[in-house]
């Protein structure tokens, strides 16, 4: 079961919408889902996603989590956040069309609009990518 329509949680739209559903959310952890479909802008000639797709997917998963929290606090529009830093990104498998990405986001503390988080993406229960990230939400 998903929590809200994803378009109520993230400001990104096609062709760069890289998260389908927020499946679970607690105070500091969330799980998202994304299915790789044909026509995805990150698909390479070999039929697999570029590694940067996983960075964007993890960032948007965090964005969906932040959007959910904002909704619960009464916001009507999803907050726009920017990636401020990517650290220790690793990608061991490049997903292809039909793969289902399940991503766990662990959100750290927010200081002056900057939130530190980590994300791990799995396909068929096997880890395919992980990263640490700082997301900046202006005006917070």
């Amino acid at each position, binding site marked *: 079961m998903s929590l809200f329509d994803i378009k109520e949680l993230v400001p990104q739209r096609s062709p760069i919408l890289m998260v389908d559903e927020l499946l679970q959310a607690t105070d500091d952890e969330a799980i998202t889902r994304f299915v790789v479909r044909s026509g995805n802008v990150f698909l390479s000639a070999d039929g697999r996603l570029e*590694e*940067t797709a996983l*960075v964007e997917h993890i960032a948007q998963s965090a964005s969906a989590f932040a959007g959910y929290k904002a909704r619960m606090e009464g916001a009507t529009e999803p907050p*726009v956040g920017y990636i401020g*830093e*990517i650290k*220790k*990104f*690793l990608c061991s498998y490049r997903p292809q069309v039909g793969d289902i990405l399940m991503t766990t986001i662990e959100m750290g503390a927010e200081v002056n609009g900057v939130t530190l988080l980590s994300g791990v993406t799995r396909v068929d229960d096997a880890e395919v990518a992980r990263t640490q990230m700082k997301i900046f939400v202006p005006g917070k």
Partner: protein
Amino acid sequence: MILKNSYYKPICVEQAEGNEQIFRIALLPDCEIYNGHFPGRPVCPGVYNIQTIKECVEQYTGRTLRMGGIRQCRLTAVITPQECSELEVHLVVTPTEGGYRVVARICDEAQTYLEYKGEMSV
């Protein structure tokens, strides 16, 4: 995904001091990605700029590369295709056992927008 001539247009490549290469590019404001990032308010996706670095390294080395790891990438300022029509991609590419160590930054005359350190493998 090929961003050359869809997201950016190459202008020229210059050899700078040491072994630094400078790729001068022009951003293409009509790129379809701005339909979704964000509707009515075009902002360059940070990952597109990282992908642009990879394409420049591929052009420089003449090889198809994989980006298995990013040690650190700092995105210090937002880039919009209106305010930043031309950008410089500075690269220092050092061969390693399985590929290349890449230190890159994206800037213009006004400021630095992105600093990248990572490994790209053959």
